[in-house]
């Protein structure tokens, strides 16, 4: 961490000076770690038309937090991770087994999860206020220990991504085609859902449940507007994501707003800019 703090001193910002605003420096590092993960997973979320699905995963994570709180954990994140993995698996399974449209299945699960979460959190007349941090998120509260956790998760996601990306791409192009090449479509979907579930759950308290899905969907959706192949798609999504993250954090410091939503607004501006420019690249 010391190295990181030293590195930042070359920046011309007031908060970057030595010994000042440690929380800001922590937040900046965590944003730089978080945004690439979201960009990478987001490309596949959009490829597989799962943007509604990833939103539901966030709701499942919230229920997990509520259950963890009920069981008396101080840090309910670990129980939330377990619950959201179970939740992701269940959605994938029912989506696979039933003939119902997938948006209906997701809608059912999503609303059940959020209702159950609120029910459990307020059980016995407790106040909901302590859970607000999960809804809005506070990146400035991140500690060096949590940053280490993030780095580990980033590494795991990168390894995971390296191993399964190609298979997931074929599944997204045509499931039957994937099947004919010996790819077990269902299991790849499950693995991918679980990866998204973990990342959404882990980062929920810093980014905020209400806007977390935009972190996944918007960079990829913007990149998709102008990309012609997977390489451009990924590189653009990464650039958009990291740029918006860093710019949003610094902007939110000066204009005093919630960081998560500031980042999302910048992402949205990029989306509309690329949307109007898309014909030039087609």
């Amino acid at each position, binding site marked *: 961490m010391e190295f990181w703090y030293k590195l930042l001193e070359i920046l011309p910002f007031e908060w970057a000076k030595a010994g000042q605003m440690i929380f800001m420096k922590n937040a900046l590092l965590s944003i730089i770690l978080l945004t690439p993960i979201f960009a990478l997973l987001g490309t596949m979320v959009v*490829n597989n038309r799962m943007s509604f699905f990833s939103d539901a995963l966030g709701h499942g994570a919230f229920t997990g937090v509520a259950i963890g709180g009920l069981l008396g954990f101080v840090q309910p994140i670990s129980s939330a991770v377990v619950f959201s993995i179970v939740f992701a698996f269940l959605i994938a399974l029912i989506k696979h087994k039933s003939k119902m449209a997938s948006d209906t299945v997701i809608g059912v699960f999503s609303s059940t999860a959020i209702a159950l979460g609120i029910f459990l959190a307020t059980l016995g007349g407790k106040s909901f206020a302590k859970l607000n941090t999960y809804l809005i998120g506070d990146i400035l509260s991140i500690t060096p220990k949590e940053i280490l956790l993030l780095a580990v998760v980033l590494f795991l996601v990168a390894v995971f991504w390296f191993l399964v*990306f190609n298979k997931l791409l074929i599944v*997204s*192009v045509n499931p039957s085609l994937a*099947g*004919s090449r*010996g790819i077990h479509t269902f299991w790849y979907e499950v693995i991918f859902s679980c990866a998204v579930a973990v990342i959404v759950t882990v980062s929920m308290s810093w980014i905020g449940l209400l806007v977390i899905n935009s972190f996944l969907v918007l960079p990829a959706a913007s990149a998709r507007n102008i990309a012609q192949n*997977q390489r451009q798609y990924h590189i653009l999504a990464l650039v958009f994501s990291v740029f918006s993250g860093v710019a949003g954090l610094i902007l939110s410091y000066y204009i005093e707003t919630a960081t998560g939503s500031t980042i999302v607004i910048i992402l949205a501006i990029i989306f509309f800019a690329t949307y109007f420019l898309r014909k030039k690249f087609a």
Partner: protein
Amino acid sequence: MKNVYISENSCQKRSCGLCCTKIKKFGVTLGNTVILKDINLHIHCGELTAIIGPNGAGKSTLIKALLGDIPHTGSLEYVQAQKGSFQVPVMGYVPQNLNLDSTSPTSVLDLFLSCRSNFPAWLIRRKKEVEKVKERLAVVKAQHLIDRRLGALSGGELQRVLLALALDPVPDLLLLDEPVSGIDQNGMELFYETVSALRKDYDLTIILVSHDLDMVQRYADRVVLLNHTVLEVGPPDVVLQSQSFYDTFSLTWHKQEK
């Protein structure tokens, strides 16, 4: 996961008719509807077998059952004379439903690379692999399409690209589910010519679901008339003149003409 790669040479060396695919007592039931029952077929390699039949006859279902995509009863046996034993054939498949997401930023090269190796297609593009992909595409006269987006291809172009993909690695059994529409006459002609040449070059077993009886007549070695079960099997001339063929397609006017 299938990792059985067969080099092209060994395929060409295999002599014709010495391997065969036996479909035994195939049946598919979805819910309470019997879609296929009692399908028995014996297919030699180097043969182009066309499956014809009315809409809803279960043609695509048969292909999907062969792929193992949907549950079925009965068995698929693949016997190769050289190796002598039963084994799981390497399958190539060209899907019927070509309506891919037209906005997807996936190029032809991306698709091939992701099928060929485990290195993420967007991160690593080895020159050697790209050259190989060009060679594969040249087989179906589609090398110029390598950098195009899948969504930007015409129906015929996409079908050829998917055919090239199905031949990489060279399969034992090639399953083609022809789209009902969206392919122009030239594209269709080129497709059939390519498939017909492949059968001879690679000594493949080809099963093709077709909607174009004219093409079937010209290119198929054997025709299977399917309507929930096998009604007729034989050379095109025989099947297309048979009583069941007329009954199935209600071409009574044709008979009266005679």
